[in-house]
């Protein structure tokens, strides 16, 4: 194991795939639904770019303090 794979306390990190997955899903809810349907513990975070990605409206919003 290379040094860069060790944590700061020198211990080997637990394998991600060697334990039950717990997922935080950001954005597209369908990904969370699919994971949940397969029994995975998932917490969905609803997020979308401001103003649906419309740069002009997003700029206005930022100037209006939103």
């Amino acid at each position, binding site marked *: 194991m290379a040094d860069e794979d060790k944590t700061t306390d020198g211990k080997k990190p637990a394998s991600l795939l060697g334990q039950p997955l717990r997922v935080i899903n950001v954005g597209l809810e369908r990904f969370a639904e699919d994971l949940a349907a397969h029994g995975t513990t998932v917490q969905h975070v609803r997020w*979308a770019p*401001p*103003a*649906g990605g419309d740069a*002009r*409206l*997003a*700029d*206005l*919003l930022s*100037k*209006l*303090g*939103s």
Partner: protein
Amino acid sequence: MEKIEKANTEALRRLLAGDPVLVDVVPAGEAIEGLGKHHILHAGPPIGWERMCGPLRGAIMGIAVFEGWANDLKDGAAKAEAGAFRFEPNHDYGAVGPMTGMTTQGQPVLVVENRTFGNRAYCAINEGLGKVMRFGGNDAEVLARLAWLRDTLGPALGRAIRETGGIPLKPIIARGLTMGDEMHQRNVACSSLLLRILAPWLARTSKDSEALARCLDFIGKNDQFFLNVAMTVGKALTDPARGIEGSSLVTAMCRNGTDFGIRVSGVGDTWFTAPVEMPVGLYFPGYTANDANPDMGDSAIVETVGLGAFAMAAAPAVVGFIGAGPASGAARFTRSMGEITAGNNPEWAIAMLDGLGVPTGIDIRLVVETGIVPNINTGIAHRRPGMGQVGAGIVKAPMLCFTQALEAFAAKLGVVY
């Protein structure tokens, strides 16, 4: 921006500080200044006869006959087309009306006074379910019921309510929220609570026991009787929040079956409109979405003050009735609307959400930023004149209204892209 935050704080304060009291029922021509002959107030933003949908035309033909301004429905349509009637939004006269929202001089209107700010709001009496004018009905049965409201129930309610000295409405709504009402598609608790207050006063002021019995029976059998009261409350609460410079909060949402319109406090009385959407919901037996008219009515004023779809968590039974998913998902609607509102109303708490107040004060900035538009619980009218209600559902306010309003709001503040 500090100016906006200050203005919104004041707008929200006014929305929450109102004290709506039911003080009277009188003919609209007496209560509403400037409402005269051949003058028809309708739901939604301004619209001319040529762009009106079927149910709105049907109601106008019917109300013209009811008021004696047309010999029959056909004559009413011809006169409307020839420009014999003046059409204006209810909102311009301190009034609101469900669905087609007919308000004319001869109809009795509920009078709600906001005792904190002194303004008054008006709405016609709910006609009950089935074939009714608010859904575009206009046959002899519909007109006869309107005549009974004008000649019997309206005056009886006026006498009784005046004797009470005024009925405070916020406490009734607060209690209704704990009994499963959201005040748009479910009003059974508040209708019953109001009748409980009204009944003895109706009895004391009545000289005709048979007429009294019919009044009590009509109110008692109409689960939506309180809808028009709640709408009048909404109008009475929102009007004092109009015209606050720098406020991005919504002061009205309404539809006329063709257009959806909103008003924003800091942009005066300008309407921001977009094509109204079709409700998604459940249909009565024998009807489908092909029969439905796009959404209509001033009733979205209840959502504007945090009721209706905004208070869905209080009314899980409504979720199933309007086909919006499982009842267990009711809280999701309220939480979602909480993301686009400036605050909560502590006087209208939802037990299901551990006493959280209904989300209040729709901020156009939050709507545009999040992409979450207001949900509205609604009835669905048949698209043809004279047919009536065919279902109930939920509809979303068009985003275009909010983006237009945001640009105008920014321009008013001198903020440009």
